[in-house]
Every structure is written in structure tokens, then in C-alpha cells.
């Protein structure tokens, strides 16, 4: 195909793309460190990270804000972006469909169901002693359990005799999303005023809850998930040719599908549990980088992880500075940034649908 080779020729070498992305990520981290509602001069901001306690109230407070509030938030932002970006890239390759998204296999709605369940029924169903010992962890734990539970159910429906039927997975995902939606609706109906508001704001997503203790826990499932996805890149590339072709190339197709599913559930479940629903990163980050590096998952996945992190950091920077001293929910901004872009992509792809 001459058009394809011409497109390939126009593509910059991968190492340049990666270097640019790493550079952009560093710049985004720096911008996120310097910008924020709490005004710290950019020079001061980085210095405050490495300075010990001085005993001066103003300087120590600035240092506290940097170390205890801004930095964990930036780390969580990078994890969220990288995790959603990588999961989106892997699922789009697996389904050979650019519209695939981590939400498709039920992870996000499962997490939302778990969170809604504990917000509304937590006080009734859980023994008080257990609730007290879990404390602030109750919500993320329930959301994570919900994400894994629902994904397992979807997986169970679509798998059998050592095979995983992707169309069935997709349909089961849609059906389970509808069931979760109805269950969340029922919980919304049962919720009192306070619970309803908690639920709403959880659904909108925010990185505001970032704490080192929480990050120390979620970094493991997320890193494990991203690494597991990265290890499947070669097989996913072969899968782009089609399942039968990949099988002939020596790819263990069924175990690749299974591993991608589990890795996505692990990483997206942990992320949704800690930050609520943050949409569109998993959908648009792989899309944008694919336009630059081409369809090969070996390039798309790492680039999407980096670009997702950049997008999330910038969106969060806007979320916490635009209406300061108040704060916008991040989920609104990622949708605000992502949806118009997505519509533009759809417009460009009209040709593929015979329009």
C-alpha cells in the first residue's frame, strides 16, 4: 500500500517521539509543581521540596503544601494518566476497535457500584467495628472490590473452554454496565441528602484525595497492571492482523486476552477507587499518540501512558487553579478537553463509515 508507506515515512522515529513525550511530561510536572491555588514563586516551589524544616511558619507551610498536598497529587495524576492511557491502548488493540475504553469491560461501573454501595449502605450493612477500622479506606476498598467483581463476572460470561469471545465480552460489558447503572440508580434513590452529594462528587472524579499512604498502596496494582500490559505489546501487535493470523504467528491468543483483561481490571480498578471516575483519558490518549506513532501497540502503549500522564497533569492543574480557592472536579475537565477532541476524530473517520 503506497499510502501506508508514505504515512510511515512521514512518521518521526519512535525514539524522538518518546524523548519529546518525556520532555513534555517533565515540563508538565514542573508546571504542576509551580502552579496551584497556594501561591509559591516557581523558584521557591522546587526549592521547598528539598529544604528541611526551617522553623519559619510561612516557609514551613509552603513546604508542607508542596510535600503533603501538591506532590502526592501530581504522583496520583501521573498514575491515573499512565494507567488509563496504557489500559486504553491495550484494549483498543485487543478489540481492534479505536473506540474501546476501560469503561467498556465494566471496570469503571463496577467501581462506581462498589463506591455507591458503601456510601449509601455502608452504615447499615458493615459492622461498625469493621467500618471504623477501615475508616477512610472503606470507599477505595469497596470501589476496588466492585471493579474486580464486575470484571470477573463479565469475564466469566464471555470465557469458556479456554477461550474468550470478544464480541460476547463487549455485549456482557454493555449489559453489566446497564445493570450497574440501575443498581446505582436504586442506591441513589435510597440515599439521603448527604450520601447523595458524596456520591455525586465521587462520580465527578478528583485527585484531591491524594495522600502518600494511599499512593503507597495503589502504586503496586497500577504498576503491575502497566508492566503486564507492556509485556503483551508484541502479541497485541500480532493480534491487529486478526486472531487466526496471530495464532499462526505463534501468539497464545487466549492467554493474551485474559492477561490484558486482568491487568486492565487491576490497574483501572485501583485508579478509579482512589480518584473516582475520570473519563476520556483512556480513550483519547491512545488516539492522539496513534496519529503520531502509527498503530503498533509497542509504540502506542508507552506513548499513550506518557501522554495520558501529561494530559491528566494539565487537566488537574486547570481544575485546581481556574476557580481557586475552590476546585473543579477533574472528571468534568477531562471530559471537557476530551469530548470535543473525540468528536473531531469521529468527524474525520466519517469516511470509514461510508459517509
Amino acid at each position, binding site marked *: 500500500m503506497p499510502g501506508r508507506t508514505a504515512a510511515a515515512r512521514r512518521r518521526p522515529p519512535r525514539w524522538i517521539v518518546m524523548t519529546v513525550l518525556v520532555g513534555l511530561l517533565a515540563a508538565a510536572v514542573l508546571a504542576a509543581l509551580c502552579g496551584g491555588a497556594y501561591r509559591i514563586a516557581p523558584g521557591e516551589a522546587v526549592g521547598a521540596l528539598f529544604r528541611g524544616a526551617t522553623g519559619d511558619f510561612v516557609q514551613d507551610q509552603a513546604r508542607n503544601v508542596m510535600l503533603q498536598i501538591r506532590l502526592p497529587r501530581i504522583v496520583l495524576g501521573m498514575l491515573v494518566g499512565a494507567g488509563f492511557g496504557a489500559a486504553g491502548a491495550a484494549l483498543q488493540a485487543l478489540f481492534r476497535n479505536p473506540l474501546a475504553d476501560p469503561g467498556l469491560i465494566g471496570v469503571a461501573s463496577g467501581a462506581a457500584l462498589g463506591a455507591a454501595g458503601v456510601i449509601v449502605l455502608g452504615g447499615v450493612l458493615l459492622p461498625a467495628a469493621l467500618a471504623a477500622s477501615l475508616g477512610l479506606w472503606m470507599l477505595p476498598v469497596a470501589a476496588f472490590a466492585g471493579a474486580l467483581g464486575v470484571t470477573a463476572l463479565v469475564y466469566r460470561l464471555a470465557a469458556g473452554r479456554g477461550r474468550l469471545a470478544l464480541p460476547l465480552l463487549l455485549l456482557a460489558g454493555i449489559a453489566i454496565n446497564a445493570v450497574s447503572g440501575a443498581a446505582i440508580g436504586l442506591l441513589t434513590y435510597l440515599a439521603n441528602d448527604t450520601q447523595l452529594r458524596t456520591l455525586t462528587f465521587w462520580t465527578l472524579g478528583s485527585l*484531591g484525595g491524594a495522600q502518600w499512604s494511599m499512593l503507597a498502596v495503589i502504586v503496586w496494582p497500577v504498576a503491575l497492571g502497566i508492566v503486564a500490559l507492556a509485556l503483551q505489546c508484541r502479541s497485541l501487535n500480532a493480534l491487529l492482523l486478526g486472531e487466526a493470523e496471530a495464532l499462526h504467528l505463534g501468539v497464545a491468543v487466549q492467554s493474551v486476552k485474559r492477561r490484558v483483561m486482568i491487568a486492565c481490571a487491576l490497574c483501572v480498578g485501583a485508579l478509579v477507587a482512589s480518584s473516582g471516575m475520570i473519563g476520556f483519558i483512556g480513550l483519547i490518549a491512545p488516539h492522539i499518540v496513534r496519529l503520531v506513532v502509527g498503530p503498533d501497540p509497542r509504540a502506542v502503549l508507552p506513548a499513550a501512558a506518557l501522554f495520558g500522564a501529561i494530559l491528566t497533569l494539565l487537566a488537574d492543574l486547570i481544575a485546581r487553579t481556574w476557580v481557586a480557592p475552590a476546585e473543579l472536579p477533574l472528571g468534568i475537565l477531562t471530559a471537557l478537553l476530551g469530548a470535543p477532541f473525540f468528536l473531531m476524530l469521529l468527524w474525520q473517520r466519517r469516511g470509514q463509515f461510508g459517509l
Partner: protein
Amino acid sequence: MTRCATLTAGAWLGSLLPMALAHAAPAASTTNATKDGPKRVIVAGGALTEIVYALGAQSRVIANDLTSLYPEAASKLPKIGYLRTLSAEGVLSLHPDLLLAGAEAGPPNVLSQIEAAGVPVQHFRHGYTAELVRENIRGVANALKIGDDGTRVAARFTAEWMQVRDTVETRYGIARRPRVLFILGHTGNQVMVAGQDTAADAMLAYAGAENALRGFSGYRALSAEAAVAAQPDVLLTTTTGPSPVDPAASLLAQPGLANTPAGRAGRVVSFDALYLLGFGPRLPQAVADLAKRVHAV
């Protein structure tokens, strides 16, 4: 085509970034709490804001939350957002030396982050009683180190409260208690009504009226048939600011509500939401007004 898309995306993001960074400016100076009491106070909670004004300490307040709507001057102060979704950095960016956090303020980890950054946070309890209002008056006054003013305002509140309780008891005590249905929000296709453990339920009890719907707690969506079955004598609702719709007309347009005794007689009472349900220092007046209105119609 693809390059065009990438460039457009870049421009899209690029145009938003300066907007975000525009807020990053050099550090502001901070004043520490002095022995005269905190000077840079942030209030999260409409009732607490009213208490601060009743204490005459409003000059110390530098910002408050979106529910602080009364008195009018309070609504013009810088806002830290909705009190349930505070931002730690946002609050700290104003360099407060005290945060008065109402019972609903949160999320909890944000409050603990603010405390960890060296800003004292005064927490207040949740509840709908006059005792709690008095306790909050004392609590705010002590936090601001104006205990004498607190004693004075709390005493005045107590006196007003006793008088209102007496009036309600003597004037309406023997009369039949009117059955009142409290309706939250009067637009949309379903009415939300108040059960037990709500500010509205407590207010009705204080005003010598009966909540027409008991047996559940919080606010619930109510069907038209259940509204008719509750047989309310009076419909009570709230307004927030000037509304283009007459609350009585929109309530009576709802199916069911028009067929209740209250609906047939057109007995609809409405109050400002913060005044009726705020449980601030205006509680005695609110109870007196509510009693007068629900017993008169």
C-alpha cells in the same frame, strides 16, 4: 489530516495552559494568630457565618463557602467553593489562621490536610436543636477568643428562644396541630418530601405542627398518591433567592398535591431555605414565623 488533528489538539491544550498558570503568582504574606484571636478566618457553613455576624466579628473573616448567603455582605466575600468539596490548597492559599468547619464541611482528609499544614480547624457537631445553636455560638466565640461576646449573644439567643417557645406553647399549644408536608424543591416531575431527622421535621415540631409524613428519615421522592394519602393541611416549601415561579402555583400544579386538603384550600407556605432550615442565630424568629404561618392558614 492527522497532522491537522494533532496540531488542533495541541492548540486546544496550549490555550488552556496559560489560563491555569495565570493564577500562579508570587507568595503573599501571612499573619499568624495573635493573642487577640485569629484575624484571618475562613468559615465553611451558612449557619456559622450567621453566628460570626451575630457576634460582630465579621471583619476577621476573609472568605466563606457557597452556603454562606446571609447576611448579604457575607455572600460577597471570596468563596472557597461548596463546603462538602473543599480544596486543601485552595483554603491554604488564603493564608487563614483559623477554619470554622460546619458539620457538613469536608471531605475529612482535606480537613486533616489543612490541620497538618498548621491551620487550626474548629469542627462543629451535626444536629437540629436549639441547644446545638447555642453550643455553636459559644464554640465560634471561643475559637475567635471573644468569649464575652459569645456569652452575651448566647444569652440573648436563649432569652429569645424561651420567649418563642412560650408563645408557641400558649398560643398554639391547645389547638389541633396542623399536618404539614414539607416539600424540597418544587420543580421537576417528582416532589422530595422531608421525613424524620431533617431540619424541616425539627422546625415543624418546634412550631407546634405535625410532619404529615413520618416513618422514614431524610428526604424522599414521593408519589402523587402518597401525597394525597398523607392528607396534609398545609404545604411548606422553600425558596432560594428571588424565583421567577410562584412556589404556590408550581406546587399546586403537581398531580396529587392539588388534591390534598392543603391543595384544595390553596394553603401553601414558603420561606427562604437558609432562614427556615439553617439552624443559625435566627432560629427563634424562624420558629415564630413558621408557627404563625402554618397555624394561620
